[in-house]
């Protein structure tokens, strides 16, 4: 084997139909098929999901924590961007 450890995969699970897939965690696997099986065993054994996505971690591009100031701080004092100035109907869920 070229490398001793299996690559890392990010696991996304959809809890039920109609909801989006959410990041559940990460695990090691030799390939995508094994990542799916491992994810099934590690993250859905207590009936947490109806669908799983796996993505090899190296394919994820992440923002740099050092850029926090320029990326996120300008949004902190702009309260008018939140949809809090009108009432949501009860039928609208998961907002």
């Amino acid at each position, binding site marked *: *084997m070229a490398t001793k450890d*299996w690559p890392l995969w990010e696991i996304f699970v959809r809890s039920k139909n109609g909801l989006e897939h959410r990041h559940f965690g990460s*695990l*090691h*696997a*030799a390939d995508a*098929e*094994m990542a799916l*099986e*491992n994810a*099934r*065993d*590690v993250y859905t*054994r207590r009936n947490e999901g109806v669908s799983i996505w796996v993505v090899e971690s190296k394919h994820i591009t992440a923002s740099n924590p050092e850029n926090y100031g320029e990326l996120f701080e300008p949004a902190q004092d702009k309260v008018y961007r939140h949809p809090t100035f009108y009432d949501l109907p009860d039928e609208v869920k998961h907002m």
Partner: protein
Amino acid sequence: MKEHLYNYILGIADNSLILGQRMGELCGHGPSLETDIACTNISLDLFGQVRSYFQYAAKLAGDGRTEDDIAMLRKEREYVNVLLAEQPNTNFAYTIGRQFLFDIYHLLYLTELQKSKDLTLSAIAKKCIKEVSYHVRFSSDWVKRLGDGTEESKQKMQEAVDDLWVYTDELFHQTEADKVMITEEVGVDVTKLKEEYYTRVSEILEEAGLNIPESKWFQKGGKQGIHTEHLGYLLADLQYMQRTYPNMEW
């Protein structure tokens, strides 16, 4: 009839109990965190099935025996699991090989048991079959990965299959209870599963690039309570708490 049915249920359940205990031994000791959890999940699936069977057997016995008594308080000769189930976790290839050789049988068996005239048994079979379908997928995948992996993994997987092969024929031996239950249309005629079993097993082994063992000599005895030396140690582990603290509960 009732006694035969009781013995027949034990014949099914003991396989899952003993194999479940073997897989459970890997809890905290699996080759990686992910496979550790996978093996333990399979163990829990099997124990869940065992509970359904033993609850039914306890009801049939009707003498105050509980599912726990049946699981924990028999002597070695009273367990009627096949020899394959009790073979040790020599290495991961053996764990996978044992699971694979049993899973293929288990799925064929449960598929037939669904047609049982005994409604409890057919209901249990219907419930178990989804779990066992996943077991087949898991163990078959790993046989292929190891067989088609590195030189070393291929050699280890071949060794495990060669060693465990002598325990496969016993799966298709009929017991006294089997014969009675087949005439009642309650039990499965395991002799009829044999051809399909070896076909399916051979397909996977070929895909894995492994040789199909040609051994014409097979071990037997588990179904009559005559076990390999490994079962005693397994039972010592399994029964320790109940023997040391009788009637203890979690």
